[in-house]
Structures are given as C-alpha cells and as structure tokens.
C-alpha cells in the first residue's frame, strides 16, 4: 500500500476560551491521487477540519490537540511564518464561495501570480508567466492576458471557481482541501468543475479532501468517504460499501433522505437536529434520534472500530445495522392524466422582465386542481420570476394569468381579498421570510388579521392547530424566529401560508437552504399536506431528483422558456428536449455513481 500523503491523527478543535469541542478524535489518511470525501450536515464541523489541515482556525476556534502530518512535516508544530510557507505550496485550499474569496479590487491575473511569486515558483518571471498560462488551460479558461486583466466580478460563478482551482493547483501542492466548491453553481457548471478536479488530482498525484454535504456529488468523485456527525467521524470506508451497505444508523438515514432520479421514492427525513457544541450528550451523539438506540448507547461514546477491511464505524450495533439496510419504499403513485376539469391556474402568453430586459418569454402553463406541478430550472432560467408573477410580487408582467377563470391583476395588493387568500407563497430563505421582531404566533396569525374572518379568541386555537399540522408543538408560539432552526422556520412559513386555507400553494425553492435530512422532512410534510388538504401546488426547484418525491407533472425551464412539460416519470426517464437530457446527465446521482463503482 502506498504511503499516505497526509495523515491526520486524533485532531481536536475547540471553542477558544471554553472547554467545548467542535471536532474531536478525528483521524484519517489520504493516499496520493486519492479523493477522500468528508460528508456532514451543517454544524458537523467539517469546514473546521478542512481549515485545520492548513493549520488555520477561524476566529473563536482553536486547535487544541492532535497531529496533521504531510510527509515529514508536522503542520501543527510549525510557527506562523513556517505555516505561511506551507500554505499554497505544499497544501492548498479551494474555498466554498469563489465570489467572496477573490479580492474584488485586484485583477485576477495579479491574484494568480502572487501565489507563484510568494513561493518563488520557477526560476524567473518568464517561467511564472508560462505557468499561469498553463494553469488557465488546465481549468479550461482563456490563457490570454486580456482575460487575466479582468476583475473577479466580471466573471461568472463557474469561472470564478475555476480561478480558485487554478490558484490552488498553481504550485503543484501535495494536498488540496476543497470546501464545498460547487455549492451555488449550476448543475452543468458543477459537473464541469468536478471533472476538472478529478483530472487535476489524478494528473498531479494530489491527495484531495473533498468536504461536502452533498452525498451524490461525493459519491461521483471520491473513492473513500468519511461521514461526520456532531464533531466526530462516525463512519469511514470505501464509497461503494458506504452507500450500498452502510453500518451506521445516521449514514443509512442520510442516504435514504437523498432524492433519487430513478424510481419514485418517498423521502424520509430525520426528526430533530444535530446537537451544537456544548449540547452534545456524553454517550453517542446520535442516540436521541436513532431508531437502533439501546440503553448502552447513552452511557459512553462508542469508539471508532473496524468492521471490515478499511471500513471503520462508530456504533456498538454496527453489525446489525449493516444487516438491516433500509428498504427503499414506495412509488409515489399517479401520473397526472389529462382531465377536462377547469384548471385552477392558467397562464397564457405570459412575458415578464426587469426594466428593459425580458426574462420570461411566452409562457403557457396550466395547473389542475389538487395537482402538484414542479417547475425546474437552473439559476437564471426565470422560474422564480414566474412564481412571483403568479403571486403578484412581480409587477413587470404582461400576458394573462387566470385563477379559476378570473384574470389576475399584476400586483397582489390590487387583487380582491378572496384571491389573495386563495393563492399563498412560501419563500426560499427561511432566515429572511419571518420578521425577526415578531413572535411565531404573530407571524402565523398575520393572514388571519388581514382576511379577518376569525374571532380574536379563536386565533390562538387556530395557531396551535396549524403548528400541530406542521409537526411543531404549540410551545413554539411564543418563540422568536432566531431561536428556531432553518427547518423549523420553514415549517412556520408553511403554517402561515396554510392557515387561511388557500387553494393554491406556491413553494419557491423552499428546501434549497436546508440540509439534506431536513429537506427530506419538509418535502414529506408538503407532500402529505397537499394530499390531505387537496391543495394545488407549484413546486419550484433546481433539484431535479427532488421532483420525483412530490410532483405529478414537471415543467422544465431554460432561459425564460418552458422547454419540456409532462408527467414526472416520463420526463425523467425519456426526455424529449436536449436541454432536459443534458440536465439529467449532468446531475450527480448516487445510483449512477454506485453502478460505475460496482463495475470498476
């Protein structure tokens, strides 16, 4: 077995000035040319681990123990100046948000060159210039000085991220840490970036740590995967065995929460949330949410032990867990068949724009009663503009939008009360859609005040009822939004939208800002509410596989037009439009990754 490039041993990172841990007892190694995926949801500590490999801790965090060895170098024992010399040259970092990681006031050529200059790469300026050109070609960007003359904001997100990759690979480091580098990118761009990463890593023999919350992406890229929960690695092993026969309850639940492109599946989320530092129980951290939990789980933290060759797990019941791989249950039945009932929502020749720019072109669409139509597209496709136009939040619109036969005014405020009540909207950002200064009760009951058909003494009762419906207790009514997690806030937003019994619910990317397991729970909630309340729903998302778990029909949008419209199964399995086909093939999918892994 080849000697690993980087070995991390019992890494311990805590909150500065307190005894609280962020990350503890973390050990792994990466061989040259290998990609190790580090998976975890928000709060697991994965970004902190990535930075620690460079000997860096963010404000408030402190590396308290453990070791990081790259070859002969013990990173954590180096002083500040030595670490500086190491970074960029021996070990590099690719940040999550390329736009904010590039200095807005410097040209990209300068930012590329300074890495080479600082580490004295090559013998002279001529060689460095050549290396810059070579790097640009490696990441499929123009190598002209004209292009290098640009400022970061003049590039697209994908180009910015490729610059980030170029900077990281510039000095031919031995280790690279990639921190969710494709978050916020288009599926297509993401696919390109992942290919670039794979090629560069194998070409240079670089050991890569790929930090992500997206199991599907990790599955396509990494040969081994480590799963983190509450600051520790709870399972570490080859990607194929992890995904097909995982041994830890959390990993299993995570996999089951991922939407699949093929075969309709109900999504199953995980109730509760991960404990934050300082709130972690003394026994196994996952125990409160675990269906395999027994009394022994609470008494002490399980150790990371091998369960197979090169496969370790942190669970005392791992063998039984492995045997009970969760069943992938149930098709979501029905494909919307053509009906002659009048559509509840109908769009004819709808155009919309911003000032002089047209963003939506000739949209024709119908939603039948009690049906869920998914609206899929990448960023810039116009799907949110369309959703907002229907809701009356986007005034620059022409064409006809009708609700039950009645044409709708452009601006919500000018619409009759009945219509405003019947069409409700749930926003994408759970952190922005609730007024931080109001209690949950006030937020949920706001529509009741406006549509005014409830007595004041009944309000509390209705609020409590809605909270129960979205699986929150009535104790939440007195809390403020900043005391709730993202998933909880989204449930409140849903409660607010449904309290006045609308007929149409528009969900605008309501799960994009949430973790995979939370996303699954929210989608499940919406699905059951739609069924129980007989809602018609427009579900806007960029996440194609998710569509399977909630919608009957799907409309695919690109550049402001609908390019494909049909039943979910049909569109996903046999698309007729080339754009849809490309979108499907570019979407990282766990099943495809497993098949490729099984074959190889």
């Amino acid at each position, binding site marked *: 077995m080849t000697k690993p490039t980087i070995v991390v041993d019992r890494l311990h990172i805590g909150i500065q000035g307190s005894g609280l841990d962020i990350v503890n007892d973390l050990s792994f190694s990466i061989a040259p040319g290998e990609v190790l995926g580090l998976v975890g949801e928000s709060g697991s500590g994965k970004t902190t681990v990535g*930075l620690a490999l*460079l000997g*860096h801790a*963010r*404000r408030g965090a402190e590396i308290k123990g453990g070791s990081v060895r790259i070859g002969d170098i013990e990173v954590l024992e180096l002083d500040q100046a030595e670490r*500086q*010399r*190491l*970074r*960029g*040259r021996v070990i*590099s*970092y690719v*940040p999550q*948000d390329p736009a*904010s*990681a*590039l*200095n*807005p*006031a*410097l040209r990209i050529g300068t930012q590329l060159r*300074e*890495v080479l200059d*600082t*580490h004295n790469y090559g013998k002279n300026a001529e060689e460095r210039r050549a290396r810059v050109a070579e790097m640009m070609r490696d990441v499929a960007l123009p190598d002209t000085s004209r292009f290098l003359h640009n*400022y970061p*904001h*003049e590039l697209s997100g994908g180009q910015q991220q490729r610059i980030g990759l170029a*900077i990281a690979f510039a000095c031919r480091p031995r280790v690279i840490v990639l921190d969710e580098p494709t978050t*916020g990118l*288009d599926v297509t761009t993401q696919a390109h970036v992942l290919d670039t990463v794979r090629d560069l890593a194998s070409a240079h023999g670089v050991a890569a740590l790929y930090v992500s919350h997206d199991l599907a992406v990790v599955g396509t890229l990494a040969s081994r995967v480590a799963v983190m929960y509450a600051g520790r690695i709870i399972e570490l092993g080859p990607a194929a065995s992890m995904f097909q026969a995982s041994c830890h309850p959390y990993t299993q639940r995570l996999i089951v929460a991922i939407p699949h492109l093929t075969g309709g599946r109900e999504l199953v989320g995980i109730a509760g949330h991960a404990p934050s530092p300082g709130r972690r129980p003394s026994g196994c951290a996952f125990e409160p949410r675990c269906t395999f939990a027994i009394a022994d789980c609470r008494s002490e933290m399980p150790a990371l032990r091998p369960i197979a060759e090169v496969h370790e797990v942190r669970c005392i019941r791992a063998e039984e867990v492995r045997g009970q791989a969760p069943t992938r249950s149930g098709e979501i039945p029905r494909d919307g068949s053509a009906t002659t009932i009048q559509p509840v929502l109908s769009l004819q020749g709808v155009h919309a724009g*911003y*000032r*002089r*720019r047209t963003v939506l072109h000739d949209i024709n669409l119908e939603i039948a009663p009690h049906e869920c139509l998914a609206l899929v597209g*990448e*960023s*810039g*496709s116009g*799907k*949110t*503009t369309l959703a*907002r136009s229907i809701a009356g939040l*986007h005034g620059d619109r022409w064409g006809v939008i009708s609700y039950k036969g009645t044409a709708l005014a452009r601006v919500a405020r000018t619409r009759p009360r009945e219509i405003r009540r019947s069409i409700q909207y749930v926003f*994408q*950002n759970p952190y922005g859609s609730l007024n931080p200064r109001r209690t949950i009760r006030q937020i949920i009951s706001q529509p009741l005040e406006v549509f005014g058909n409830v007595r004041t003494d009944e309000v509390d009762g209705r609020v409590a009822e809605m909270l129960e419906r979205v699986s929150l207790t009535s104790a939440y009514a007195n809390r403020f939004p900043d005391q709730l997690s993202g998933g909880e806030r989204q449930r409140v937003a849903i409660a607010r939208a449904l309290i006045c019994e609308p007929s149409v619910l528009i969900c605008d*990317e309501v799960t*994009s800002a949430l973790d995979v397991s939370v996303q699954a729970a929210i989608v499940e909630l919406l699905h059951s509410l739609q069924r129980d309340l007989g809602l018609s729903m427009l579900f806007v998302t*960029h996440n194609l596989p998710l569509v399977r778990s909630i919608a009957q029909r799907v409309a695919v949008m690109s550049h402001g037009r609908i390019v494909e419209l049909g039943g979910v199964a049909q569109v996903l399995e046999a698309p007729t439009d080339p754009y849809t086909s490309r979108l499907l093939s570019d979407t990282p999918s766990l099943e495809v990754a497993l098949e490729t892994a099984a074959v190889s």
Partner: protein
Amino acid sequence: MLERPGGTGGPARTGGIRMFILRRILQGLLVLVLVSIVVFAATQALPGDPARAILGRGATPASLAALREQLHLNQPVVQQYLTWATGLLHGDAGRSFAAQEPVSKLLGDRLVNTAFLLLCSGLISIPLSILIGSYAALWRDRPFDVVTSLVTLVFAALPEFVVGVALVVLFATTVFHILPAITLIPPGGRPWEQPIAIILPTLTLVLAVTPYVVRIMRASMVEVLESDYVEMARLKGLPERLVLRRHALPNALGPTFQVIAINLAYLAGGVIVVEYIFNYAGIGGALRDAVSNRDLPVVQAIAMIIAGLYVVLNLLADIATILVTPRLRTRL
C-alpha cells in the same frame, strides 16, 4: 441556489467613468443652484422688511428708501435672486452693509487664511486617523484599541468650542503658559509667518475630526480583515505584510472616503467657532461678525462658499470611491 429577482440591472451604461464624472458634476451644480436658492430665500425672501431690520426703528423714510433701492428690494423676488446669482458668478457678491466695501475684497484675504488653516488640519488629521484606525483594527481588543476607542468616543462627543477652550485653559492661560491664546497676525501678514500662533487652532480642528475618521477606518478595516478574501490570501501563504498592504488596506479605504469628505466639510463649520475662540482672521470669524451685524451679503457669500466646498468635497469623495472599487465601475 438563489435566483435573485432583484436583477443586476440592464446593460452597462455607455461611457463608463467619464460619463459618471460628468453626471456627478452636473448633479453637484444642481445642488449648488438649489443651495443658492435656499440661502437666498433664507436671507432675503422672508416676510418683513430687511431694510428696517438693518437700520433699526429709528430709521428715516428717506434712508429706508435709499437702502431698499440699494438692495434691489423693489424688484420682484426672482429678479433679485437672478441679480445676486449672476453677480456671484462674476465674483461680485455685493457690498457689505457694515463695512461699506465690496464683499469680495473683504473676504479675499480671510478666505486664504481659512483655507490655510483647513489645509493644515486636513493634512495632519487624515493620514493620522487612517493610521490609528488601521492599527486599532489590526490589534483589535488589545490595549491600544481599547484606549483608542475610549479616547475617540470622548472627543467625538465634545463640541469643538469646548475642546478649543479647554486647550486654551490648558496650554495658554491657566495650567501652562506656553502657547498664545489668540492668533495675533498683524494686518497684511500671513498665518504661516507665525507658526506658533496656529498650533492651538489647528490642534482643535484636528481633535474635532480625527475621532470620526478613526472610528470609520477601524470599522471598515475590521470588516475587511474578517472577509473571505483576506482569509483566502492568508491561506495562499502570502506574508502578512502583503496581505495588509495589497488586500486589506485598499478595500478598507473605499468606504472611508465618504466619511473623510463629510468630515472635512464639517470642518468648514467647525472653523466658525474655532476662529472666534482664537481671533483668527478667517471667514469663520467674518461670518460670526456678519451675523451679529445682520450683514446679509456677507452671510450669503460665506454660506455659498461653505456649501460649495461641501459639494466639491463630496464630488471628489464619490469619484475616489469609484476609482478604488472596480466592482462599481461596471454598473455605471
């Protein structure tokens, strides 16, 4: 994946920086015109009889009539405004009531003196405050920062005349006796011929302005030091000095230009009080006397000068901000 319905605006406007500067200059001129209307309205278009107010109750009808003639009070208001405004453009600001000589002659020397005082104060306070603010941010929460924060808080709150009088009490009259309390410049002389005399006035103005710029510089620098791109620069292995000089400082300066401009313009107001304290022969002192004497032409002229200074400084600040922030240039 956020699709931002706010839109990034239409196609980039043509012309870029030059058009922007031109547009800003035109905007500034518009503001100046509006300001002149306000100044004029405040002094001459108010109800009541300025002539009577100036000459007092014991004025004879003949002298009142003569004064009204001299002040063009018999013309319609708009005409009066235009007369005054066009006069201004030619450098003629009318005649002073109190001194019976052209305002421009009266103010000429004083303007130079005040300009010199403002220049000295500005040249000292701005680099000083940028330096102090940057280091306070760099050594955040350490003794230097804590002390600076307290000191700037105190001096930002104190009115300038309190600072000025306190300085006089401290250094000139009561505690020490090393500096003069009054700037005695012989008529026809220039303040730079008497450097000791301008120490205290300059110091007062510097203490009036530095606290604000220090605070904004610190806040701006702290934000920049916490930014992703500064972290990224460090993770690239760049030496700390380079990180500060090339990555942190230029981005921190952008937001401060506006504040610097506002504060320099604010000095123009502070100068009124400071010149009074130290009996400095500048336009601030002239303004004070003019108000006391109800000498309206002088008041109008000085108001326009100060407003003009403010507009020019803001214009320069806006242009400087654009130059330092490339991102804003493509939105032009």
